[in-house]
Each structure stands twice: as structure tokens, then as C-alpha cells.
């Protein structure tokens, strides 16, 4: 094969010719996104206008507001505590020692989608003993079922990014007993996932309308709808407040999660894992 050395070419001065292909910047992309933005922002604006600034201040003073909000918060706490108490050990144990149960667990987390809240509450009210039905805290117990898939997904993602099995083996090879390993190695690294699971659960409970209204207890969303009869603007203001608070929570997870992930190299909790569904609608 002829071996042409290209040194002489290197010494030539070639005329500089910019070969920048014109990048066609499609306008359509901007049009679509702009139209979408309009469609989504107008209702927000309309609601703000309708409610009026005054309503935001009024909201807090209305009858039933604080009771409803406090009830919702209490339920949120109950649900979160139970959910985490159930899901954390379960997810960890399945991940570490019972991998065969994994598919079963994943199938179970699909169940709340298959058995929608409106149907579930019918069944729950059917079989619950009287003493439970007469307290709103029954809702707190049932909400755990709704929160369970989201908690599982957060924790599972966190565990998977962590390579838990390797860490546990390393810890035990260094002499750690199980409780220590759990406390010092696993849980600290799950902080983001735990935070995410908590926020999702709280947001879910605070927004849950279906079951609460059918169980005839006045949680915050139920109160909002009922109050509409009295004052539309106030209800609208309360809705907007609820929305903004939820958003703040969600952005909080993403922000904290992102920063942590950069430090510990763990999984990014993205908004995709953070969507709620069903019962709020």
C-alpha cells in the first residue's frame, strides 16, 4: 500500500472556510410549548383573579378551616408513620434477603391502582367494625394503602442506587451487627428516599378527597368543597394555597435529592417518581 506522508500538506496554508451548517431552528417546537404554557397557566391566573388577594387572608379565619386542616395534618402524620414503619423494613428485607418476594411485592404495589379508592372505601366501610368507623382515624389507616406504592418506589430506587448488599457484606465483614448496620449504614444513605416517601405521603393525604368525603369526615379538601357553597373565592384561594404548598414540597425533594445525589453518588429522585395519581382526582 502506498504510504503517503502528509507532512507537506501540513505546511500548506489552507484558506479558512467556515463550514457551519445552518442549524434549522424549528419554530414549531416553540409554538407547541408556548401553546401548552398558555393552556396551563391561564386557569391559574383565572383562579388568582377570581379569588382575589383578600381571600387569601380570609381563608384562615373561616369556620371549619383550622379544624379541617388540623384533621388532615393529623391523618398525614398517622399515615406517614405507619407507612414508613411498614415499608422500610419490608423493602430492605426483600431487597437483601428475600429477592424472590420482589415480584410479589411489586405486584402488590400495583393493586391500589387496580382497586381504585372509590371502590376501596366501599369495601372498607363494609367490613370495618363500628368503633373504627366512628372515628376519622380509620382514614389514616386506609391511606397507608394508597401511599404504599409511592413509598415503595422511592425506597426501592434508593436501595438500588445504593448497592445495599455489598455495603451490608462489607459492614458485617468489619464486624457490625445487624442493628448497627441498619442504623449506621443503610438508613443514613436512604435519607433522600425517606424524605421523598414522606413528602409524597403527606401530599397525598392532604389532597385526598374521595375516601374522606364518602366516609363523611371533613378533612381539608372536603372542607374546601363544602365551603364553596358559602364562598367560592375563599374555596378557590384555599385550593391555590394547597397547590402551592404541594409544589413547594415537591420542589424541595428534587432540590434536596439532587444535591445529595451529587455528594453521595446516589440516585436522582426525579419528578417522574413523584407523581401522585388516583385518589386526589
Amino acid at each position: 500500500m502506498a504510504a503517503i506522508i502528509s507532512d507537506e500538506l501540513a505546511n500548506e496554508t489552507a484558506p479558512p472556510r467556515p463550514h457551519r451548517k445552518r442549524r434549522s431552528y424549528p419554530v414549531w417546537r416553540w409554538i407547541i410549548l408556548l401553546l401548552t404554557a398558555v393552556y396551563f397557566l391561564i386557569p391559574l391566573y383565572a383562579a388568582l383573579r377570581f379569588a382575589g388577594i383578600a381571600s387569601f387572608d380570609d381563608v384562615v379565619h373561616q369556620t371549619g378551616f383550622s379544624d379541617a386542616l388540623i384533621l388532615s395534618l393529623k391523618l398525614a402524620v398517622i399515615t406517614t408513620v405507619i407507612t414508613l414503619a411498614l415499608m422500610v423494613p419490608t423493602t430492605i428485607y426483600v431487597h437483601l434477603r428475600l429477592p424472590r418476594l420482589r415480584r410479589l411485592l411489586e405486584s402488590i404495589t400495583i393493586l391500589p391502582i387496580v382497586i381504585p379508592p372509590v371502590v376501596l372505601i366501599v369495601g372498607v366501610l363494609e367490613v370495618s367494625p363500628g368503633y373504627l368507623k366512628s372515628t376519622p382515624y380509620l382514614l389514616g389507616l386506609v391511606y397507608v394503602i394508597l401511599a404504599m406504592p409511592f413509598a415503595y418506589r422511592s425506597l426501592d430506587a434508593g436501595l438500588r442506587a445504593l448497592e445495599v448488599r455489598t455495603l451490608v457484606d462489607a459492614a458485617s465483614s468489619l464486624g457490625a451487627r445487624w442493628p448497627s448496620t441498619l442504623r449506621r449504614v443503610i438508613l443514613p444513605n436512604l435519607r433522600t428516599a425517606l424524605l421523598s416517601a414522606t413528602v409524597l405521603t403527606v401530599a397525598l393525604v392532604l389532597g385526598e378527597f374521595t375516601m374522606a368525603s364518602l366516609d363523611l369526615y371533613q378533612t381539608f379538601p372536603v372542607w374546601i368543597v363544602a365551603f364553596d357553597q358559602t364562598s367560592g373565592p375563599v374555596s378557590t384561594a384555599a385550593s391555590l394555597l394547597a397547590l402551592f404548598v404541594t409544589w413547594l414540597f415537591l420542589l424541595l425533594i428534587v432540590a434536596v435529592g439532587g444535591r445529595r445525589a451529587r455528594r453521595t453518588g446516589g440516585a436522582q429522585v426525579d419528578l417522574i417518581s413523584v407523581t401522585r395519581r388516583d385518589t386526589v382526582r
Partner: protein
Amino acid sequence: MTAKAAPAAAPGSVSDPGAGPRRGWRPALRGARTLAGVAPFFVYILLFLGIPTAAIAAGAFQNPDTGQFTLSNIHTATHGIYLHGFLITTELSVITSVVPGLCGLLIGYAIYTARRGAILRRVAITASGVFANFGGVPLAFLFIATLGTTGLATHWLTAIGFNPYENGFNLYDLGGVALVYLYFQIPLMVLIILPAFEGLRPAWREAAQNMGAGTWQYWRRIGGPVLMPSFLGCLLLLFGSAFSAYATAEALTSGTIPLTAIQIGSFLNGNVLAGQQNVGKALGLGMVLIIAVLMVFYALLQRRAARWLR
């Protein structure tokens, strides 16, 4: 809980779950402890999900007064106004899954083809996440303020000569509810379809170009077919989401719209005809079955998508 006497990978140790003969009482205890750790979860599921569901399934076939087996509930649930309810719900779910499906696809494509790291992308993705979490009560109020009889957009449209309410539109009936559903179904679709887009390897696009394919040909022969299982799966999810939705429609219409979910709710709080107390359970059973079938198809589609996008 360490396997004191054993080196790594001893039977029953953490790195060797459940394999090999158990020696000594410590490993056995570990096994018991593990089961004890997961048992509460399963018991809870059984209590709060399993039993209620069984009650519904059983009640659907029971005569409410005598407790005897009967098919009359099922019969009522599949005829007359309840059949109507199923049909309307299906119609609504199809519209609010296909339309958002296509819109979401388009928006997802716009985001996907935008320059990486551009502000546009990040804003769009964050916004989608945020709007997908709308729903229920707050959403209903937002739309009442926008397109209700005295809503802002209604006012604007009337000002330019087109009053929607005089042209067949009504926020408080099926069309209006569908419009509201779009508000959270579209972002949901965008969020679900984006990872599927991201799964399209750039090498495929470049290889196709290298082979002489233009943009249209690429999408037609490669991009489209590869995305199809994910897209269909998303449609199923959207359908299920719309089918079982209750809060938005209830908050908007106060139960005056013939949707299955609303009808089920009415059995708890509304006036129930004598002898029909268990029809609500039959309706519930029907809803569960429909969604279960959808989920089976969804799982199959996901498996196909996973195989190709590996």
C-alpha cells in the same frame, strides 16, 4: 447478627440468603427475624386491602336482605343507567387518554429534540412534574374560575363574540369534565413518555442517517416502532387513571354526571333503592375487573418495551 463462626458466604448469612443447610440457631433466628420483618406488611395489606376487596367481591353476589347468592346485582349493574354509566365513563376515558396521549407525545418530542441542558428542557420537565400532581378539588376550582359560567376565559371569549355556553359547551357536563381531565393527563403522559424517548439511542438515529434515512423515515421505521409499546402502555395507564377518577368530577358536578365512579359513591351517601344496596359493590367489582385487564396488557407491553430498549 453476624455469622460469628462462619467465613463469608456461609449458609444463612446475608450474602447467601436462604441457600444451604442451616447450622446452629443463629442463622435460623435470622430467618425468623426476616420473616418477622416483612410479616406486618403482608398482614396489613390483607386487613386493609384484601378483606375489603373480598367483601366487595362477595357482596356483589349477595342479596342484601337475605345474604343469599344472587346475580341480580350484577344484572342491575350491567343494564340501564349503570350500563350507561360504564359507557359514558369509557367514552370519557378514551377521549382523555387518546387526546392527551397524542398531545403528550408531541410535547415530549418537542422536549426531547430541544438542546440538552437548555433552559427550555428543564422548565418543561419541572412544569410537567408539577402539573401532573394537580387534580381533584383544586383543579375543579381552577376551572370553575376559568371556564365556569362567570369564568375569566368565558368572559374573554364572550367579549370576542363567542360565548361557549351558548354554543353547546358546559363545564359541568361530560365535555367540561373531559377538558379538565386533560389538565393532568397531558403532563402525566409527558412524564411517562419522556423516559421512553430517552431510551432511544442516538446511535440508532446516526446509523439510520448513515444508511441514507431522512427524519421521517427514521421515525417511521425505527423511532416509531420502538416507542410504540411504551406509548400504548402509557395510553393504558391514562385510561385507567381516567376511568377510576372520582374527586375531580365530584367536585365539579356534585355528583350529577353519570360516571361509574360517581355512581358507586352514590351508593354510600345517596338514596338507594330497596334491594339494590349491593349494586354498588357489583359496580365496583366491574371497575376492578376492567382495570385489572388493562394492567395485564400494560405489563405485557412493558415487557416488550424493556426487551427492545435494553
